[in-house]
């Protein structure tokens, strides 16, 4: 649970509850973008974010997102477990 993993925002799926669909290494799930409201206009599709326990906690640029993903991939089992847990997540 300690990892923050990078993903790209695909679409806003529930504007009232501030939920967006993100793509994390091909896994598409809903996360909350409510913690980034107000940060220079909030989150829009195409943005890259760091995701922690189902919430986007900071915006990053694409290069940083890719570098972070490379680092996580090299971490191996922990990242895989995090992805498995994300896969099991159904936020609505």
């Amino acid at each position, binding site marked *: 649970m*300690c990892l923050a993993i990078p993903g790209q925002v695909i679409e806003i799926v529930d504007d009232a509850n501030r939920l967006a669909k993100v793509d994390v290494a091909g896994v598409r799930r809903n996360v909350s973008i409510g*913690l*980034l409201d107000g940060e220079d206009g909030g989150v829009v599709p195409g943005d890259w974010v*760091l995701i922690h326990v*189902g*919430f986007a*906690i*900071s915006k990053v640029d694409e290069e940083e997102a890719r570098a972070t993903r490379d680092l996580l991939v090299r971490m191996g089992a922990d990242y895989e477990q995090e992805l498995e847990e994300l896969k099991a997540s159904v936020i609505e």
Partner: protein
Amino acid sequence: MRFVDEFRDPELGRALSGEILSLVEPGRHYKLMEVCGGHTHSIYKYGIDDLLPANVELVHGPGCPVCVIPMGRVDDGIAIAHQDGVIFTCFGDMMRVPGSSGSLLDAKAAGADIRMVYSPLDALRIAKHNPERQVVFFAIGFETTAPSTALTLKRARAEHLPNFSVMCSHVTIVPPVRALLESPDLRLDGFIGPGHVSTVVGARPFEFIPADYGRPVVISGFEPLDILQSIEMILRQLAAGRCEVENQYKRVVPYEGNLRALEVMAEVFELRPHFEWRGLGFISHSGLKLTEAYAELDAEARFSVPGVRVADPKACQCGEVLKGVIKPWECKVFGTACTPERPIGTCMVSSEGACAAYYNFGRFAREREVV
């Protein structure tokens, strides 16, 4: 320098370790603490210790959220989980943390309905889909995680969900760091500041470290190069007689933090007068509980919990590990009675815990030293 070759920019890695060598005074011993478990993990994984001069020592700090949960809290969680009609939810890492008579995983095997969730919002969904059951979320974590629980609680309250509550065991990062600085058994020269916590709290809360204790802090990213560069920045401050908070992880951490997250936290949580930390004992104003406005969503109030304080097992030296007084392998049960499969202490449970990180990666480093 086998490990540098795995870095994103091996040249820079070599240059940084050369820089570090030129900054240390021979004969002086440097103790730097990395506060965050994520850094501990990277340090062991990439053998960063091995790239440093022998007189620069890295000490692992208390920043692993799972490792600091005391046994009594686990027991309270299990007590709630065993009540009729309860679905108890928690993060996967929390399942194996030992309480005084087993872990949540053991309680699940004994028949309690305990479910692992990825997010507090998953727990909220379970509550909506099971209106006849009481759903409790065991909330743990530092300021990285607390805003997520806060936002979930705001939604639960707005939607008037009667069957959702939170057992709040969130903690804050500054009080344990201050406690360590006050601790007589430890003399630290500088801090590698936590990366993800700082995306929320920013750099400002760490200003007391240089101001009150005269020690430098560098907030650091998680790549091996980030950590190496942060060490170089700390040593540069020390060499120049400077001490301040610097931000190596500017590309992710704004100096002010995430104002929206701080606002939500302030609305939902308040500080407990004191909170018990595994191995560190009670630290005042270090834990969060729900404010009056959210009291009805507080699982501790909804279910009577035993709230008994349980002393750590005798064999366990997690406190000393969390304070950086001993290295993981110096604990008497390390790798024998205590392993990631059968942990005695919490530092062995999460992969961010110093003992587990060392168990998984560090042994190779030590074998290298031997050959």
